[in-house]
């Protein structure tokens, strides 16, 4: 992002000109806002190692007298965070794998086949972009009940197996593949599946990775739908698990414990983000929709 060559002005000797003053002011504003933005997370991190027997107060707000990991151990004892992790990972990757298959197939059909009703079918699928799933929890909840899937991992995943955004993205991407390559592959006796796999998928890999990252982050963070269709430890994802944990009566306002639970949920995510910052940001840029 910062690779644009620009004239390097930083080496000039500093002088008090209107410009240098406004630049310095800008930097101060930037630094103050950045600190303000970072503080909630830093505070949560600090309090998560605050000794549970020292009450938080205006005078004792951060690490306490001796930082400790007791809160983490206790959080793991009270709530099955490991199970929640497993559930979230199954949900997120279950959705992703099915999506990658369905969007590749449908995207291929819309990119390279002529068939009756093509436009109306494409339009029907695209309607999914315009009717947000969160507004459909009432009927979808009934559907899940009727399918006897309530409180299962499949119930959390099922509504997202077809993706209009992914189909649209794959159609656009596959269209950029030269038709000659397709024809050549068919001439060599490749069937449609081989053509799709060897000709279309490889150049679409960046688009698929961008789609994957945005799908993962959307479903990793999703809360309302899993809240509605799950009711037990075996199917709850992390987000719902954390909400249940913080609202347990026995926990009350024990903030060191609550923040430890929160860090257990977001820690790995933050770590991954630190490592793959650039890829994360680029994938967010490429998929403003979901």
């Amino acid at each position, binding site marked *: 992002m910062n690779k644009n060559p620009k004239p390097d002005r930083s080496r000039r000797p500093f002088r008090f000109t209107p410009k240098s003053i406004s630049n310095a002011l800008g930097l101060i504003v*930037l630094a103050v806002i950045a600190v303000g933005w970072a503080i909630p*997370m830093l*505070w949560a991190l600090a309090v998560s190692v605050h000794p549970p027997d020292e009450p938080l107060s205006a005078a004792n707000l951060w690490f306490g007298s001796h930082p400790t990991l007791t809160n983490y151990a206790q959080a793991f004892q009270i709530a099955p965070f490991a199970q929640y992790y497993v559930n979230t990972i199954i949900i997120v990757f279950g959705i992703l794998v099915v999506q990658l298959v369905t969007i590749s197939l449908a995207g291929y059909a819309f990119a390279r086949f002529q068939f009756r009703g093509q436009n109306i079918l494409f339009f029907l699928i695209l309607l999914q972009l315009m009717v947000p799933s*969160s507004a459909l*929890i009432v009927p979808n909840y009934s559907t899940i009940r009727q399918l006897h899937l309530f409180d299962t991992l499949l119930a959390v995943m099922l509504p997202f197996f077809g993706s209009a955004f992914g189909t649209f993205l794959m159609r656009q991407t596959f269209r950029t593949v030269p038709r000659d390559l397709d024809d050549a592959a068919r001439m060599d006796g490749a069937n449609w599946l081989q053509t799709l796999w060897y000709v279309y998928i490889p150049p679409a890999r960046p688009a698929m990775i961008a789609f994957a990252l945005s799908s993962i982050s959307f479903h990793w963070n999703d*809360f309302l739908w899993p809240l509605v269709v799950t009711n037990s430890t075996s199917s709850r994802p992390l987000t719902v698990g954390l909400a249940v944990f913080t609202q347990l009566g026995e926990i009350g306002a024990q903030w060191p414990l609550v923040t430890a639970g929160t860090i257990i949920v977001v820690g790995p995510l933050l770590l991954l983000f*630190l490592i793959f910052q650039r890829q994360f940001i680029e994938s967010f840029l490429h998929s403003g929709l979901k």
Partner: protein
Amino acid sequence: MRLRPRTPDTRTERRFRIGAAALPYLLIAPTLLFVAVFTLFPAIRVFYDSLFLQNQAVQEPQFTGFGNYAALFQDPTFHQVIINTVIYVFATVPLSVFLALVLALLLNQKLRALGLYRLAFFYPTILPMVSAATIWLFMYTPGYGLVNVFIEFFHIQSQNWLGDPNLALIALIILGIWKQTGYFMIFYLAGLQGLPHDIFEAASLDGASAIQSARYLTFPLLAGTTLFVTTIAVVNAFETVDQIYIMTGGGPNNATSMLLFNLWQTLFSFLDNGKASAISVILIAVLLIFTVTNFLYTERRGSYE
């Protein structure tokens, strides 16, 4: 392109050859099936259900026409919900989009520790809203919550942010801005990086001041980004629910209840299926306006690329 001449797929090939005309339909069938079952039919069904009374008092659905809608629009609680939603949208969207633009402009220069700044502004985006809301629940704690510690530093009296009907919505708005500004910022940063440098150099040679070139070059050239980001922001703001569930439960006195939360509450707390369906239809109608705009814009942008 290397193709393996003999793959184990030859048998499936013959099977698929039979219905060559059916192939594209088979390819889109899975997507169409899931979209139909979980988007198209539900959208029709929710409208249909909204025309029936069905709640704890009326177990068997009973046709009422637009009775559920009429009841909603006469209900002071629902008025409050609409007002809260509108205030939230009109506060969160412009403030976070404007701040995102300011931050992007400040970051779009040679800076020491640029990565650190970007990290500070962007990390809230990747947090699940539930976790962000939990952290902010802590920030707003009466007494020693950092928000109160901060305002007491300026000799303002400590407040019960989430317990005060006049402050609770503001507290949610602050969280909303904190959570999404970094996300919008990266769109502006990308937009700024894509601006043609020679135009700015020409303007600067012609004696344009920094403010002039911002006013006449930067802002107009970023108008597309602003439209795109604003649409996303509006849709997100209308779908606000996670933080309400975690932080206030819609209270105090419905001061923070918004459309989607009210929908959830109507269905699962008040067990009123008919009314919940009517709220869904209203929510869909409002969002449709914005998602259609968003889609048309991306479609147009896509065809330029």
